[in-house]
């Protein structure tokens, strides 16, 4: 980039793609391309087999009980919107309460605002402390029989905080509320077991897990998905249609209207194989070392303040620098070949909480190295030369 080797530290936005993921997509379009679940011809059977095989890989990856509980979506945002809309229209009534947290991405705020407004429900927000940790006592005090839903981020994209999701889920279940976990920033960094966690829904995106863009997963417990009304109508989600009455298909197809992103699903399957060969335990341990190294290196930079200092963090380091705005930092680092994210990271309430307009954010993945933080620090010294 700009004549310098690329230092890619924007993995919370999207990850780079391994060769195996590129290859299966090429093979699909060259040798297997057909629509799925429809044709009687062999090509359609092959495409269907490959797509459904990928669903099976996802089921094992997150330890779902059945492939019926694994819905393909276009990404985390689509998954959350599906649950907010479909669960909301089936179960939410006036006076009910939905709880989210102060560190949610806009995609886990706005769908709940929309459905709460529609159903006359109240949206409540768990506050956090100056380190970017949720105030669990406050949360537990908020819970009541009125609480119908809790939608919570596993790992914050702007602060790196790892939230105590198991404790949140147990507390919510104790008052009869259901829980969605936004796993967008979690799946590439920590082992997820939806049954051990006991979440009711779990959403994530393929492209943050080394897979293609435009594909994602929504896990949901079967009894809930069965009880929920469909989200979108169309082909593949129906059993029979007359102008008087339509009966819906079984799970997971009830929530998969229209021709899906077939090649995306197959690509995601290959990405999961890639992660499994390395093992998320090893990934997690390695990234924790990198995070500790990067945090120490950046903390030593004069005038730098890290935003998000939770005791339990994943590989995201958000920071601000005296005298230099994050956008200027981003532009100067870019000329050094260093890609980071700058801005509010679609978490404007987090920025408001910390009284800052934006941050610069370095986020790591399994392929990053410690010396890339050395490059980042040298880049920041260049920023300081310019801004003094």
């Amino acid at each position: 980039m700009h004549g310098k080797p690329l230092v890619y530290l924007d993995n919370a936005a999207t990850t780079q793609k391994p060769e195996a993921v590129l290859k299966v997509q090429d093979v699909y379009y060259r040798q297997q391309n057909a629509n799925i679940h429809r044709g009687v011809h062999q090509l359609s059977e092959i495409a269907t087999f490959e797509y459904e095989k990928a669903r099976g890989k996802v089921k094992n990856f997150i330890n779902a009980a059945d492939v019926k509980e694994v819905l393909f979506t276009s990404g985390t945002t689509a998954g959350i919107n599906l649950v907010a809309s479909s669960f909301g229209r089936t179960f939410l009534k006036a006076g009910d309460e939905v709880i989210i947290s102060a560190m949610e991405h806009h995609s886990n705020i706005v769908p709940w605002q929309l459905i709460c407004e529609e159903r006359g429900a109240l949206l409540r927000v768990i506050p956090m402390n100056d380190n970017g940790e949720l105030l669990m006592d406050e949360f537990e005090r908020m819970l009541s029989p009125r609480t119908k839903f809790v939608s919570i981020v596993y790992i914050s994209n702007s602060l790196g905080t790892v939230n105590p999701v198991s404790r949140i889920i147990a507390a919510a279940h104790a008052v009869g509320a259901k829980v969605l976990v936004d796993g967008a920033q979690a799946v590439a960094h920590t082992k997820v077991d939806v049954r051990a966690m006991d979440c009711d829904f779990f959403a994530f995106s393929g492209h943050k897990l080394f897979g293609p863009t435009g594909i994602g997963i929504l896990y949901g417990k079967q009894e809930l998905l069965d009880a929920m009304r469909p989200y979108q109508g169309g082909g593949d989600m129906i059993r029979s249609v007359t102008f008087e009455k339509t009966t819906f298909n079984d799970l997971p197809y009830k929530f998969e209207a229209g021709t899906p992103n077939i090649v995306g699903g197959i690509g995601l399957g290959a990405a999961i194989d890639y992660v499994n060969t390395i093992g998320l335990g090893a990934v997690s341990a390695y990234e924790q070392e990198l995070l500790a190294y990067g945090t120490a290196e950046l903390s030593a930079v004069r005038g730098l303040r890290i935003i998000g200092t939770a005791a339990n963090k994943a590989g995201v380091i958000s920071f601000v620098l005296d005298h230099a705005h994050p956008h200027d930092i981003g532009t100067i680092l870019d000329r050094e070949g260093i890609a980071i994210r700058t801005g509010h990271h679609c978490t404007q309430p987090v920025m408001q909480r910390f009284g800052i307009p934006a941050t610069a954010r370095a986020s790591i993945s399994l392929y990053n190295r410690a010396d890339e933080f050395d490059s980042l620090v040298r880049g920041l010294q260049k920023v300081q030369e310019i801004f003094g």
Partner: protein
Amino acid sequence: MSDLSELYQQVILEHNKTPRNFKKLELFTHDADGYNPLCGDHYHVWLKLDGETITDIGFQGSGCAISKSSASMMTASVKGHTVKEAKELFEKFHSVIMTKIGDALPEETIEELGSLGALAGVREFPARIKCASLAWHALNAALSNSQTTISTESEKN
């Protein structure tokens, strides 16, 4: 080309560090907000017009060095000038920063821009062009609003 020193020229860094007219006007005839929701840069521009002349101008808010220095230089350039002159200056400035990479810059126009010409380098950084034009859009919006009587903040509320 597209060197960092082209973008962060001394005059830009100086305006960023010590912005001119970085104040709220107590008495003003026009004002408007400039906000870029994608990056969060946010400025408010106040103007006091006497007839067609901009007799005073101020701005406040937060954003990057490019947006802040552009706002500062803008206020310094239009103060004491007529609305027509300010709008002409905006047109010239806009045409310079929007000149495609590789196309020749109109040298005469850059000279007419004075210190604002320093921002011509932003065209080499497509992601930053909106930073340079943000305060100008706020100025344009303020000049387009129909409010003609002087108001103070308290009267407005």
